[in-house]
């Protein structure tokens, strides 16, 4: 391409870079501010002195959090939750995606199942019937309430299915001729080839369960069963509309009761796992997203 080097063009390029870098800063500054608050002294935080750098540096907020039994209880629930959910959801995603990836010539009743999965994607009974069913099944205050109701994720199934479809037919035909069953073909032909997309979906499941907080609020009565994000929502990000009467001053006082540094520390610790797996997530992100959502 011929490059035009006019002054106007150079000014534009320059401004463009400045703008893009400012945009990136805008995305990251709130998080840096959080970290700075968590590492500042209480008095500095309360006086509103903290910007992007800790004032009167101290790790008090973190050592306080390390001694907070409630925090660790919630952290343990979250770890259990992710640990149980990943294998179950992967199994369900793969076993649903494999049959749905077949052509109608091999799987005549496929359209019925496709309709079955799609109907509940576009139409739901809403929050209340869902809540009643989960409580009637007897899952209240059980960790399974955080895992089973959302265990079938149609988006993950579609992602996986589209990947399976890209695998050459010759491979499975060869396996069938050698007498392999569907289960065996899935386990020994499809799975080894699909490891990258299985890794992607695993990361989605981990982040999804780590971040989910609402089911913890509605299905757990005993706070010791709260996962980390639910604990944060109810104990740390205390801006709970059900507990305050609507009096402006009361809200102001409530927001100003300062556990500011320890709150910031706990929120920041909850961000760390996501920050750690983000680089891996991001690598698969573009391909995964474009396969799943928009085709041609």
């Amino acid at each position, binding site marked *: 391409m011929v490059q035009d080097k006019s002054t106007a063009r150079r000014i*534009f390029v320059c401004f463009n870079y400045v703008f893009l870098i400012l945009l990136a800063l805008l995305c990251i500054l709130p998080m840096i501010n959080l970290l700075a608050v968590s590492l500042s002294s209480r008095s500095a935080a309360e006086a509103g002195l903290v910007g992007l750098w800790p004032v009167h540096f101290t790790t008090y907020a973190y050592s306080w959090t390390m001694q907070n039994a409630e925090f660790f209880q919630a952290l343990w629930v979250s770890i259990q939750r992710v640990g149980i959910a990943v294998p179950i959801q992967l199994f369900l995603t793969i076993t649903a995606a494999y049959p749905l990836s077949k052509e109608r010539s091999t799987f005549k009743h496929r359209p019925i199942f*496709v309709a*079955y999965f799609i109907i509940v994607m576009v139409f739901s009974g*809403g929050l209340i019937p869902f809540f009643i069913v989960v409580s009637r099944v007897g899952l209240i205050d059980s960790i399974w309430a955080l895992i089973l109701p959302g265990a079938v994720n149609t988006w993950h199934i579609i992602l996986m299915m589209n990947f399976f479809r890209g695998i050459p037919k010759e491979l499975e035909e060869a396996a069938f001729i050698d007498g392999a069953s569907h289960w065996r073909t899935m386990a020994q032909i499809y799975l080894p080839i699909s490891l990258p997309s299985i890794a992607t979906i695993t990361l989605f499941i981990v982040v999804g369960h780590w971040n989910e907080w609402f089911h913890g609020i509605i299905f757990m009565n005993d706070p010791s069963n709260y996962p980390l994000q639910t604990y944060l929502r109810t104990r740390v990000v205390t801006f709970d509309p059900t507990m305050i009467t609507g009096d402006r001053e009361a809200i*102001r006082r409530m927001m100003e009761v300062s556990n500011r540094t320890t709150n910031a520390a706990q929120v920041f610790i909850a961000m760390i796992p996501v920050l750690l797996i983000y680089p891996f997530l991001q690598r698969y992100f573009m391909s995964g997203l474009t396969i799943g959502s928009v085709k041609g």
Partner: protein
Amino acid sequence: MQLPWKKKAGWAMRKQARKVAFRREIPLIVMLLPSVIILFIFSYIPLFGVVIAFQRYLPSLGVLGSRFVGFDNFRDLFMLPTFNQVLWNTVYIAFMKIVFMLVVPIIVALLLNEAKNQFVKRGVQTIIYMPFFMSWVILGGIFIDLLSPSTGAFNNFLGLFGIEPIFFLADNNWFPTVLISTHVWREFGFGTIVFLAALTSIDPSLYEAATVDGAARWKQTWHITLPGMMPIIVLMTVLSLGGILNAGFDQVFNLYSPVVYESGDILDTLIYRMGLINMRFGLATAAGLFRSVVSLVFIVTSYWLAAKYSNYRVL
């Protein structure tokens, strides 16, 4: 000419063949069973549970024992003094989010496409997707702190320009703006990827031809880039219409409080409070059903439009 017995044999053989074909399908159906059962329990039974919307539901009597009251719950819902306000808030917030989530990512994608320095381009991309992976509990914690009128860094920053501290999260004039802007802040990076992918698929020879013809850069953007992106812009617009009643429960729930119900209470938060705080199951289910039906109409229409105008298929 065919003899009757021969015809019968053909039918039997076809039946036999169908049986064999079905037997080959059995492992596939078995594989689907676990997912089918879980969806049945946690999605289909609640789907039938919407009959609660037409009942005076009492938990002690259950769905089968509660009395049917016709459309009473819907009448009560539409008579609620706050209902119109809540519906308006929902549509306004959702609509503004849709508009900005189209405009901002398109502009950012165009600007990123102009950046030829790969280091800057990749770095900026990596950072702008990041907020998307943080939950609204975490972001709520960040923004409640950041926007605080007395200690928040944002008001301190505004103070540098002599602006008096604003209590963003308790001010009805500001609250919807905060919702829309923090939503865009979290998700524009995610939206940018789709448009950036569309940009890179535009045939480079078009730009070469335009350069030879002496078209300036902004003219190329106007006459080549934007038309090239049009299909995907139309597609994203159409698909996002399905979310017209989805104003973002997670976000609103983590940022609102009774002082901003007037401007920030949405259908989903109303349903949550009516149902699970005030225990008015029938009324809340009616509100949920109202939301589902309206959304369904929008989703089906938008997918139909998308299939018609851009050959989009989910499955």
